[in-house]
């Protein structure tokens, strides 16, 4: 029993030792900043007199003041609504295309499958800033080939960087960037369906479309749920693309998305306390949404399992 006596000691401590670097990094760069943000969200600067001289500006407790300000702040609310509208375009179109491409890749006798798969996945490797920059130029009437063609064909030339079309222009960048990744996730789970599952249906004379709708899509439902979930989170946190398009148009306010609003409050207005409360609200909204969604998805899966 010597091994048994020696083992518990080394084994017991080992997992904690292996997790030590991650724990330290988590404490320093996740827990501490989050705690600090929460702390700041309850603070404010109190200015006495003209705010001149030392001691005139003091940090004091603010209670819920920052939060009530944030909730009643129209900029933040408008940003949330804009992002919601944008997300209503991005998520269905992106996941619809990803599912379509995955099903097509998974069907028999497809030509150029490796090439097209790689090409559609390629935008994943391209930074959002560069993607927005490339599309941004394609939206500019002066340099875009699309406008050139529209002009030659004497068709109306919509301004893609203003009003309603701006949402489409922005959504297109996200769809372009995200479809490939989601396609790979769905395609991977399609590949893991055993071939026998289709054989019977094929023998019964089911068409590829019927097989896709009745067998494949239900079987990849869990990965659809997963991609849906991550797409929503990514959409709510959009920042890079509108920031990059901003220099190309005047119709993008600095507070277009909630994250841009937080940035503007923190670094342009210099009100880190207000910004912290907004960041906390966004984080809470994300968490509530995430857990609510995952619970609903779990419940449905359980219901279907018991059915």
């Amino acid at each position, binding site marked *: 029993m010597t*091994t048994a006596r020696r*083992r518990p000691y*080394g*084994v017991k401590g080992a*997992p904690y030792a292996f*997790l030590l*670097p*991650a724990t330290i990094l*988590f404490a320093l*760069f*996740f827990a*501490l900043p*989050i705690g*600090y943000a929460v702390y700041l969200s309850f603070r404010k600067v109190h200015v006495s007199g003209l705010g001149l001289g030392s001691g005139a500006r003091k940090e004091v407790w603010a209670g819920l003041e920052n939060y009530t300000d944030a909730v009643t702040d129209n900029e933040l609310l408008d940003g949330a609504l804009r992002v919601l509208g944008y997300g209503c375009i991005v998520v269905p179109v992106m996941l619809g*295309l990803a599912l379509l491409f995955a099903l*097509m890749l998974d*069907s028999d*006798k*497809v*030509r*150029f499958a490796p090439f*097209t798969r*790689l*090409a559609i*996945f*390629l935008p994943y490797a391209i*930074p*959002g*800033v*560069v993607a927005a*920059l*490339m*599309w941004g130029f394609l939206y500019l009437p*002066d*340099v875009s*080939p699309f406008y*050139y063609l529209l002009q030659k064909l004497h068709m109306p030339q919509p301004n893609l960087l203003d009003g309603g079309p701006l949402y489409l222009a922005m959504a297109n960048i996200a769809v*372009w960037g995200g479809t*490939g990744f989601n396609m*790979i996730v769905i395609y*991977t*789970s399609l590949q893991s369906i055993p071939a026998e599952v289709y054989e019977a249906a*094929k023998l019964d*004379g089911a068409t590829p479309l019927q097989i896709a709708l009745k067998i494949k899509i239900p079987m990849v439902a869990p990965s659809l749920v997963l991609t849906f979930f991550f797409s929503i*989170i990514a959409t*709510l*946190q959009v*920042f890079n693309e509108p*920031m990059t398009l901003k*220099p*190309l148009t005047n119709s993008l306010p600095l507070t277009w998305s909630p994250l841009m609003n937080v*940035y503007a409050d923190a*670094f342009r207005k210099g009100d880190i306390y207000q*910004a*912290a409360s907004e960041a*906390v609200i*966004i984080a809470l909204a*994300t*968490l509530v949404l*995430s857990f609510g969604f995952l619970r609903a998805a779990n419940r449905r899966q359980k219901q279907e399992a018991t059915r």
Partner: protein
Amino acid sequence: MSSLAVHKAPSAAGTTGATQSRPPLRSRIALVPTITLVLGAIYTLLPVAWVIIASTKSGRELFSTFTFLPGTGLADNIKQLNAYRDGVYWKWMGNSALYAGLGALLSTVVSSFSGYALATYRFRGRETMFNVLLAGVLMPPIILAIPQYLLLAKADLTDSYLSVMLPQILSPYGVYLARIYAAAAVPGDVVEAGRMDGASEWRIFTRVALPMMVPGLVTVFLFQFVAIWNNFLLPYIMLSDDEKFPITLGLYTLLEQGSNQPALYTLVITGAFLAVLPLIALFLVIQRFWSLDLLSGAVKS
């Protein structure tokens, strides 16, 4: 003639589905899927193709010629880009390579430790630690970045390489992938056998488990490399000295300046083209052995 071979196969098996005879082309290639995928590929390659062509144009050509015709200014554009602020562009590329390369390497090391521990040991607090780490994925980057900036400012570390590097070493998603991969690739009895032989836990990890985890760790590395290379928010908040900028931030500032002087457009476009080039090259090389399946958490055991 491979097409002939492909043609023969379905007709030989065609007896099972002999309800109708199909036109030969349709039995050779599935037209709808092929066309759909080719259209998808055209859509994704379009902006890349445009940026490649546009980078060959001189400033005047950019605004005057049809944009899908190559111009004559590529060499000039690159020369201009090289000259811009004493070649700061290449500094940005180098910085990006440093942030992403070293950052992803450290991140993979930390992920491998954590993933291995979470997958192979049973200990108190395991699931709690894992769930708390995963919650990190859900945190909007800005709720982390702003207080990280303020805290690093207290330590006098902002506007430094470390300020961009340190916060990105721990990747919750990397830990998650490493855990899934370790659980599937490292059999429990192999670890146990190592213990029986009297090997230390560290030795078992480095000699036995780590080699088994390599394919999964390659994925973690590449995932994190792309994530850091593409990151914009964190360096945007942390840095003010453009000598330390990564390429994303550099191009952004170039575009911001270019907005009121279209002469800089060619510089931005050429910069975007050259920035995309290494990524495409990297992508083509790595996709051979990058197990994309793992990216979605699927592991073949």
